[in-house]
Structure formats: structure tokens, C-alpha cells
């Protein structure tokens, strides 16, 4: 089970869907949802470099297009991985299947790409099966379709 899970997505309704799906699947002990990448950026900035492992979430799901934010999901992942010390399991959760964007995400250090749809639970279940390997940073990049 994931200790702390963070979702960065501008769609508030998806926060509820994701939280309930996570709860039903017993995915995480605690869950935090943010609706802008600026808010997430401020939090990660505050956590780094004082005590990065104390408060930082264990796993972060980022939407690709975060409307109303200064950064998109790929830029957010790049910042977390390259500016705020890495150390979290991080990936994209988006309804997009654009191969070019998937490649960009891979390049900035995203570990997975989950396709959003009405039936998200099977993908999250599959993700949880692979989670330990993601944690050890030994898993290859994977797209959950």
C-alpha cells in the first residue's frame, strides 16, 4: 500500500473519482488532491531541501494539461525530478494518448502513464501490482491503456 498519494489535476470531479477508486482498491493510507501545478510546485519547493523525505508524498499522479496553471504535467514532473530532489514515484494520468507527449514525459523521468477513462479501477489495480518495482526505480516506463 502507498503511504501518501498526491494527485495534481484541475478537474475537481476527478479528485472524487480517484479518491474513491483508490479507497476501494486499498491503494493508499492518505490522499491529497491539488488542482494546480503552482500549488504543487510551492509545496515541493517548501519541502526541498530541508527534509525531503519527511512530508513529501510517496507517489504523485499528475494530469497532462492542468488548466489555469503555469506548468503542464510534463514540466511539473521535470521540476520535481530535477529541481526538487527526485525520490518520488511519479507519472502522468491523462485522457491523452499522444505518443509525442508520452515520449516527452518519459524523457523528463515519468515512470508511468495511465490513460484516464470512465473505468479507471482496472488500470489502477494493474499499477498497484507493479508499484513495488516503481518504488525501487527499476521498472521500465509503462503505459496503462
Amino acid at each position, binding site marked *: 500500500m502507498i503511504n501518501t498519494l498526491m494527485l495534481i489535476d484541475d478537474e475537481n470531479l476527478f479528485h472524487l473519482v480517484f479518491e474513491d477508486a483508490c479507497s*476501494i482498491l486499498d491503494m493508499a493510507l492518505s490522499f491529497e488532491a491539488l488542482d494546480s501545478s503552482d500549488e504543487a510546485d510551492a509545496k515541493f519547493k517548501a519541502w526541498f531541501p530541508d527534509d525531503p523525505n519527511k512530508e513529501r508524498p510517496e507517489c504523485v499522479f499528475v494530469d497532462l494539461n492542468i488548466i489555469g496553471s503555469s506548468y503542464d504535467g510534463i514540466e511539473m514532473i521535470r521540476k520535481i525530478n530535477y529541481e526538487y530532489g527526485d525520490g518520488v514515484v511519479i507519472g502522468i494520468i491523462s485522457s491523452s494518448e499522444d505518443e509525442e507527449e508520452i515520449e516527452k514525459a518519459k524523457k523528463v523521468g515519468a515512470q508511468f502513464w495511465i490513460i484516464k477513462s470512465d473505468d479507471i479501477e482496472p488500470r489502477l489495480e494493474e499499477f498497484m501490482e507493479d508499484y513495488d518495482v516503481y518504488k525501487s526505480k527499476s521498472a521500465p516506463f509503462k503505459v496503462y491503456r
Partner: protein
Amino acid sequence: MVEITEHTRNVLLEVAKKKKIYVEGNFLKILKAPKGDKEFEDYLALCKEKDITTRKKRLTVTKQVQLQNKELEAAAKENNRINKQLSKALDEASKSAEEAILAEKEAQKLRAEAEKLRDAAVEDLDTLQKRTQFELIGLIVKTALWIIGGVGILTSCLYLYVLSQGIDAKIIESTWSNLFGILLTNSFSIIGTIMGVKYATEKNK
């Protein structure tokens, strides 16, 4: 995991029994039943079951709302697209109406010009006809005058010749006077006809 005290355990069980209130949410995931406490284990299992049922219900509703939102968004986009098309069609129709008005004005202008030209042509034709008529009348009058004059001169010459030769001139005399009378009458008749034609033509005009 959090192992709870005897007192808390009893309170939780009592609240569940009497008020049907159960622990829910992520807190449930860290609660642990004391070893061998079957009753509390069952209680926690029931709490989890209720929590999952509630979450499943909420998830279904949220997904429905999410789906409806997507449909509404799509409908709004479609409406927007149709509105844009309608606006475009309306603009085009207005433009066409303006063009039609301009074309109508142009047509009216051309019609007026055509009518003006037609009137001019009719007038020219009328003038031409009149001129032809006058020329014809002139020719008839000239011819008639020549004939009248000729006959007059011929008859007079014949009468003078008869008088000078001393030939009986009774027949030629009466003929000459009759002929002059007829010639004068005819001359006035021709003049009267010409005047009449001229008067009628001016009246028609």
C-alpha cells in the same frame, strides 16, 4: 497500525450498536483489533464493508456526473459550433440581401436608361416617319402642281392658238373654263388635304 484501548473499543462498539455509527475513511485502514478480540475484528470488517459500499455508490454517482459533464461540454461545443455556423449564414444572407438591393437599384437604373433610350428611339422613328410623310406629301404636291400647272399651260396654249388662228373656239373655250375651274377646285382640295393632315399629325403628337 493503531491498537486501541479497551475503553475506546467499548465506546465504538456501543455507538455502532445503539446509533448505527461506524468508523469510516482512511482512519479505518490504520485501526487494528486487539489479539483474539473476535467481536472487534467483526466490527472492523463491517466498518470496512460499509465504507467500501458507500465509496462504490459515490464513485458510481460521481462517474455519472462526470459523464454528464462531458456530454454537456460536448453539447455546448456543438451548440457553439452551430451558433457560429448560423451567425455565418446570417451574415452571408445579410450580405446577399444587400447585394440584391444593390442589384435591384442597378436594374432600376438600367431600366430607366433603357426606357429613356426607347423613348428617344421612338421619337427618332416618329420624326423619321413624319419626315418621310412630309417628303411624300411634298412630292405629291409638287407632282400635282406640275400636273395642274402643265395642264393649265397646255390648255391655255391650245386656247390661245385656236384664238389666233380664228378657228371655232366655243368647245375649247368652255373646256378651258371648265378645266380651270376644276384645276382651282383640285388645287384647293389638295391644299385643304395637306393642311388637314398637318393638323391631325400635330394633334396626335
